[in-house]
């Protein structure tokens, strides 16, 4: 390891810079080391946690169980096209889950893009599948009450799913817990929206956006806040 050339103070190269800084790297005190050792080795037992695969499995079961529960209770009016759309979104949900929580982490920009684009695409698909459109004023005076009821149920299912997923993945991501939390919340929010989508016969655009879709955005945001605390070790 060569010494930096002290006669050329302004000419340090990058490797020299690293060497020079490393040489001045201070060590923690021995007393602190002893304290840490005591804390970290007291009654040390083998630690067994859930594997990443098990966590993915639990999250998938939570998402699919919510959809399946409502699917079984669905009114007879649910059409095959709606079910097909739901099946498509289940595939997207699995993708979001894997992007958010898989140990083989996707690049941060891609995960960020997913967190933004999936809600946009979900709202777009709701608009695409809607069969009726009312002016916002008319909707607020006549149909807002029904949308509020759907919204409550979507929130309930979404909270259940997101909660299970965030709890399952707690303490696993020190790198970007807020983003991971957002993606897990997004997955739960979509599950809640799909669940209510099966049960609700309404096809009005504002109803779908505000009653069914708003939970997707909300849970992505709440997931980010909770993830920051829960998902970081």
């Amino acid at each position: 390891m060569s010494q930096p050339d002290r006669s050329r103070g302004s000419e340090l190269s990058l490797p020299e810079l690293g060497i020079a800084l490393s040489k001045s790297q201070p060590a923690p005190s021995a007393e602190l080391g002893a304290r840490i050792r005591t804390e970290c080795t007291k009654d040390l037992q083998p630690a067994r946690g859930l594997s990443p695969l098990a966590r993915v499995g639990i999250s998938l079961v939570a998402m699919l169980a919510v959809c399946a529960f409502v699917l079984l209770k669905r009114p007879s009016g649910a059409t095959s096209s709606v079910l097909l759309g739901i099946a498509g979104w289940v595939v997207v949900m699995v993708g979001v889950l894997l992007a958010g929580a898989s140990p083989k982490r996707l690049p941060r920009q891609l995960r960020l893009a997913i967190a933004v684009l999936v809600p946009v695409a979900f709202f777009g698909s709701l608009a695409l599948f809607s069969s009726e459109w009312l002016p916002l004023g008319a909707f607020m005076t006549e149909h807002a009450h029904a949308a509020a009821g759907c919204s409550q149920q979507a929130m309930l299912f979404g909270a259940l799913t997101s909660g299970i997923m965030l709890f399952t993945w707690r303490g696993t991501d020190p790198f970007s817990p807020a983003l991971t939390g957002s993606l897990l919340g997004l997955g739960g929010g979509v599950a809640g929206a799909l669940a209510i989508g099966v049960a609700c016969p309404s096809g009005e655009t504002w109803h779908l956006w505000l009653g069914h879709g708003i939970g997707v955005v909300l849970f992505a945001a709440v997931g980010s806040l909770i993830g920051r605390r829960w998902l970081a070790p």
Partner: protein
Amino acid sequence: MAESVELQDSALSDCTIEQLMERYVDGAELAFDELYRRTSQKIFGYLLRLTRHRERAEDLLQITFSKIHRARARYLRGAPFLPWALAIARRSFLDERRSAKSRHEDLSYDGTLPEPKQQEGGLSLDVQDALERAVMELPQSYREAIELTKVTGLSVAEAAEVLGTTPTAVKLRVHRGYNQLRAALSDFKRDAK
């Protein structure tokens, strides 16, 4: 079981950091000792540059290892240990800073700006000392990028993961930080003449 753990401990010096962590997860105390010996200085150096305060850095080092201990069951076997540990250290620092906003990192406990560290007899002519002080003057993002890549020895991709940014951004921060260091050391050289 205990015997096999002891047998494994005999070859700890040949283990990688990741293997040491795996043995620690399996309950081998000696593996923790070796793991601490190999990594604590790097983590402490990183925390010291973040906090610019030895006592706070020591507190955070203890918090970091405490968190590593509690989260050891969730460590992904085989995954690079140092970026994982540094990310925990960084998050501990951010949490601590958030919870003590009034105690800004540039202020000492009595709320005054700390005097720049100088050697006895005025400004040191030692390049390394000047470099150290110039690094402390850098914006935190540049300082962290240089610390992680040039001192701790992480790859650009690993540093980007710890910092929650892109590899390109890390390269840019290192480059800009390096340019600032060169300028700072150039000034120092002129002052010293």
